[in-house]
């Protein structure tokens, strides 16, 4: 009897209270990156045998969507999955590791981040914030959508005065090239196209866009690796929460994040390939962007970022140069 109670006490001692993390995607619930974020959280919980429970939350449910990183820094969340671009309210350089003209395409982006010093530069950029990332935490979603358009783009001249909804640096650069860039929320794109408020727009990836029924409002789908060669999503983790973990749990977090980031990248490449077929099936004309537009965009983007490198904090130039050099070496390889 006494043995049994000893054994019982032993078991009770082994059942340590689980460490609880809260993690948020930038959602909505049906978004691919949100789904993979949720899978990753659950996988960590499972792999740790319940010692580290990571509770997944849909973007916007705890803090407003895109404010995940601030919430990690404040200790509200311990983990978050978001687009670096959503942090350019704090660091202009965050816009570089994003879907931007002249950025790195999928494979180049991922290898630069993991092996070419990208993750380190991002940590350097975030400075004394209680937030970190690490190699393997980035999924470069294939963002090859240049525009969904009502207008056929045959040459650079067709861009002049084109009412195009375009956010971020891409919007600014296209405006410098003569497009009439319109700023409206993504949720109003469908109607704005339908009623002629705008003639063209960019939004997410082809896979997501297929689910948004954009074929109903835009006869043309333009693809190009120039405006947004990839759309990186990054897992961010609280430095202090991570450092408090025992080494094996740290390893589990790294491994699972790396695994699900890569899995999401592959899944989305595959879905994008399928989505393009679906667009074609329903009669959407899928075209490549004319070469002269691509060249002009690359030139304008280079000028734009050189200007910014001169005026922003040194980290901006450092990240820009690192990506640029890597991109050139990567292109030489192909």
């Amino acid at each position, binding site marked *: 009897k006494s043995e049994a109670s000893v054994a019982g006490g032993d078991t009770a001692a082994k059942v340590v209270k689980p460490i609880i993390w809260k993690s948020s995607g930038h959602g909505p619930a049906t978004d691919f990156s949100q789904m993979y974020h949720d899978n990753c959280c659950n996988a960590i919980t499972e792999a740790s045998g319940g010692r580290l429970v990571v509770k997944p939350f849909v973007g916007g449910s705890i803090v407003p969507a895109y404010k995940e990183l601030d919430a990690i820094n404040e200790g509200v969340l311990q983990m978050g999955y978001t687009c670096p671009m959503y942090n350019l309210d704090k660091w202009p350089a965050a816009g570089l590791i994003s879907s931007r003209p002249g950025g790195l395409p999928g494979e180049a982006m991922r290898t630069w981040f993991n092996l070419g010093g990208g993750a380190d530069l991002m940590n350097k950029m975030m400075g004394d914030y209680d937030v970190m990332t690490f190699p393997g935490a980035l999924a470069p979603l294939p963002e090859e959508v240049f525009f969904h358009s009502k207008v056929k783009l045959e040459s650079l001249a067709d861009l002049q005065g084109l009412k195009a909804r375009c*956010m971020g640096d891409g919007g600014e650069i296209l405006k410098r090239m003569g497009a009439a860039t319109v700023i409206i929320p993504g949720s109003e794109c469908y109607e704005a196209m339908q009623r002629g408020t705008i003639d063209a727009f960019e939004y997410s990836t082809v896979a997501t866009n297929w689910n948004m029924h954009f074929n109903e409002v835009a006869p043309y789908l333009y693809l190009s690796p120039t405006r947004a060669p990839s759309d990186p999503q990054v897992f961010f983790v609280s430095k202090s929460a991570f450092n408090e973990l025992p080494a094996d749990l740290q390893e589990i977090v790294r491994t699972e994040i790396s695994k699900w980031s890569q899995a999401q990248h592959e899944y989305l490449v595959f879905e994008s390939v399928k989505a393009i077929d679906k667009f074609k099936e329903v009669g959407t004309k899928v075209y490549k962007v004319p070469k002269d537009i691509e060249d002009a965009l690359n030139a304008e983007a280079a000028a734009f970022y050189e200007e910014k490198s001169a005026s922003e904090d040194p980290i901006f130039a450092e990240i820009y140069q690192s990506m640029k050099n890597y991109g050139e070496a990567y292109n030489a390889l192909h």
Partner: protein
Amino acid sequence: MAILLKVLKIIDWLSEKAGAVGKWFAFLLVLVGSYDAISRHFFNAPTIWAYDTLCISGGVIYMLGASYDYLHDAHTRVDLIYGNLSKRAQAISDIVCSLFLFFPLMIFMLKLAIRWAVKAWQIHEVMFTSFWYPPAAPYRTVFAISLFLLILQGGARLVRDFYFVIKGETID
């Protein structure tokens, strides 16, 4: 008492002014929204500044309106029971409720609002919904000032309620 009354009047004046200044942002909404629509549709010249200007103007209206509404007792109440109470009972209820349901909430909000306003100036925080990138610090500051005015007005109302409960007449 005269000094107290004077302080109350100053707080009232501040709340009135908050409304008087804030109201122009409502008219600005109409002008900016129409300008953007007309300029985009008829002149093919959409603005990049209208979107953020509209959002910020909206925020200024709501925040500056907060203390103005408190002064004019325009924040919605469920007056099913409250409406049938005597003036004195209403004042007592408001005193108790504001001590528990107003001041703690708003003082914590103010504390964070100040912290973020300071931080916004320090890190040059910008708003990035558009690529206009307006600085966030001015709005964060208005946000904090508005909460401060709201708390002041809450204090003024508390003093008035106390006075009424004790003396049985209004201080004004």
